[in-house]
């Protein structure tokens, strides 16, 4: 069975993918549907959903359109999730590959360095970094990437460690290939599957992390984000539930969708590990 067939046979993964595409479409359509800034006050505050046809999700405490905020927030969430994950991979993969391939002292140094980051509570570290560097898109991405690369390093190190003793890697050595080309061409392509799976889950946790930071008021002040919206609405949760509820739902759905897709990818990329019966 091909990869796509296996992926499609997992219904949860398909649903997740559909939700994700929907969110992506919303993010792309944001500037066309709501060309004006989502920060602009467009109507009366505390307008309930569907009270006015123009504002299907209502307005917030300052009369800003919740729907517009939601769609613009999607862009920020997805962008931060993707970019910070890429940045984390950029640090984690080379470090893990070096540790796993060279072993010995290099391994010890890389792993102790990794553990240094793992022993610090990641959310606290992220808060400190953002607070020191001033909240902005760049500092948030940096903070998320800095706290999320250690698991990547551990994963890649483990994979490389088991692959480097494989005969085809040994064969590449006997053929006289250079070390960088052995790592890049023989080993890393065979670690892609677990990395992709992990990356899809990392995007989800990056979105959560960004939302948490924004909720605490450490988001980029120029960007409308879901976390900020939840935070801004929390004091009026009882009488104006929609202000916090819709962005909260958006975070929940996005993270769920990413997890479903990640699990589907994992099953599709490792058909032998997929559930179902004795081996």
């Amino acid at each position, binding site marked *: 069975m091909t990869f796509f067939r296996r992926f499609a046979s997992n219904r949860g993964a398909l649903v997740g993918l559909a939700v994700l595409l929907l969110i992506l479409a919303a993010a792309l359509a944001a500037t066309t549907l709501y060309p004006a800034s989502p920060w602009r006050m467009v109507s009366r505050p505390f307008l309930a959903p569907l009270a006015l046809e123009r504002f299907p999700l209502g307005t917030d405490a300052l009369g800003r359109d919740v729907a517009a905020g939601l769609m613009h927030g999607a862009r920020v969430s997805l962008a931060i999730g993707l970019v910070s994950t890429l940045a984390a991979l950029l640090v984690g993969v080379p470090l893990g590959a070096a540790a796993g391939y060279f072993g010995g002292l290099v391994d010890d140094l890389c792993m102790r360095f990794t553990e240094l980051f793992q022993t610090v509570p990641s959310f606290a570290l992220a808060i400190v970094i953002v607070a020191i560097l001033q909240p902005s898109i760049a500092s948030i991405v940096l903070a998320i990437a800095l706290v999320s690369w250690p698991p990547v390093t551990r994963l890649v190190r483990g994979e490389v460690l088991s692959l480097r003793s*494989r*005969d*085809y890697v040994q*064969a*590449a050595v*006997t053929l*006289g290939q250079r070390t960088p080309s052995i790592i890049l061409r023989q080993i890393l392509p065979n670690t892609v599957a677990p990395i992709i799976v992990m990356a899809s889950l990392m995007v989800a946790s990056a979105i959560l992390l960004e939302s948490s930071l924004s909720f605490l008021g450490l988001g980029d002040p120029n960007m409308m984000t879901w976390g900020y919206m939840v935070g801004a609405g929390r004091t009026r949760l009882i009488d104006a539930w929609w202000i916090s509820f819709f962005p909260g739902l958006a975070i929940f759905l996005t993270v769920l969708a990413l997890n479903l897709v990640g699990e589907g990818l994992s099953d599709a990329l490792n058909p032998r590990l997929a559930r179902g019966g004795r081996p």
Partner: protein
Amino acid sequence: MTTSPVLAIENLSLALPSMADRPFAIQNLSLSIAAGETLCVVGESGSGKSLTALATIGLLPRAVRPAGGAIRLAGRDLLGLPERDMQDVRGREIGMIFQEPMTSLNPVMRVHDQIAETFEAHGALDRRGRAERTLELIQEVGLPDPAAIARAYPHELSGGQRQRVMIAMALAMEPKLIIADEPTTALDVTTQAQILKLIDALRKKHGTAVLFITHDFGVVAEIADRVAVLQHGIMVEEGTAEAVLRNPQHDYTKRLLAAVPSLIPPPPKDLAGAPKAFQVRDLSKTYKGRGFFRRGREVHAADGVSFDIQRGETLGLVGESGSGKSTVGRCVMRLIEPDAGSIRIGDLSIRELSQAQFRPMRRRIQMVFQDPFASLNPRRTVGRIIAEGPIAQGVPKKEALATAARLLDLVGLNDNATDRYPHEFSGGQRQRIGIARALALEPDVLVADEPVSALDVSVQAQILALMQDLQKRLGLAILFVTHDLRVAAQMCDRIAVMQRGKIVELQTTAALFRDPQHAYTKALLAAVPGGREVGSALPTA
């Protein structure tokens, strides 16, 4: 003595899931085993021999379903039995011995508890009775110092000892039938010979019926009363061991038997005047265990190993597991750095070179690996895999790919294989690709590390013939590492026998088999299952 058989398999068919390569794993199989009889089921990989064993003990993978027939144990059909009753049958009426003694014992349980567990599962005996019977069993399977063995954990025992514990567990409830699924395949020959003797002796003593699954005709010759030959799930021949081995009727059986290499070496090649291609002197490698507070255990994997190989000659490096033969193979490739000694390819001494200096010289010595499934990168096309060597040595890519196509032809594969991936090929074909990769750099010396031990006998014969043919054409000096004396007898001009890191005997093949000098060589030769009765000379390619 055949009044009613202990096990009667009648018209058994096992259906495979729809995407498998054939509809039935087993088709209309009928077998019977009488008390005290050993039936060997022989076949190559994929013949359905292991599924026959699993069906009998009710442990088929879920995807495989019985599609008809019956498996009768003393008259009772096991196929219709509910899982609860089947659990009672397992252990009490059928004992099972698996292939891997390393993984079929629980590593965190003492030997005594593992054996006693069988009694507990069937509610037999009281505490004291179990303890006594366990010690008796340990003694019966020929383990020394039963009290100490009973307290030991599996990792403290050798492979052979573990297999004896497995046999003790299988015997615990005095079952009517013992199923042994390749019980000696993972063991060294001398251990294998002992285990075969033990199984045979216990069968005679207890009158147990034995269903013995194997791929090795040598083992068949040692142990079988009757033989059933399976091919693609169909039994093509059945008869007494004598009749099947001496006078096989079916073509497939004849082909299988013809592919088993004989222990009688072919006439020697004329190598007079051939220049020395490869020279190893006093090669040593010691592994030191890394202890925190005390010095770890030292293992001399190679200890003063010296040999020469002439152009066009094959030197066999023979020994059991742990003898250091693979370490020597990897040391001369400098995949492992030796501690001392010199290695010369022609006039070039390679030990003193740094890895970077050696890299361009690597083309002169190449390697064929053991496991054809692990030695090819699954994500590269076959053409790229073969061309990689020349490309690394500076040959332009286009030229290298052309060489790859030519080499595929040389090793007997169609050159449209270049754009396909390794998983599309069978084990034998992959080994051909591995050989082509090694030859792409036109080496002087070829190190072959157990190149055929993962292959079926018929494929093995083809690969060996190919290697001999290539050697003749290209004048390769081959260092042939193997544990299989049959293969060594047919392939090698001279043989070095290794034990605990040392070469204990180095002779021409003919002399070694005619008149072995060292006690260890003699023991190895005596332990080869089937001896000189089974096997034939290698066909030429």
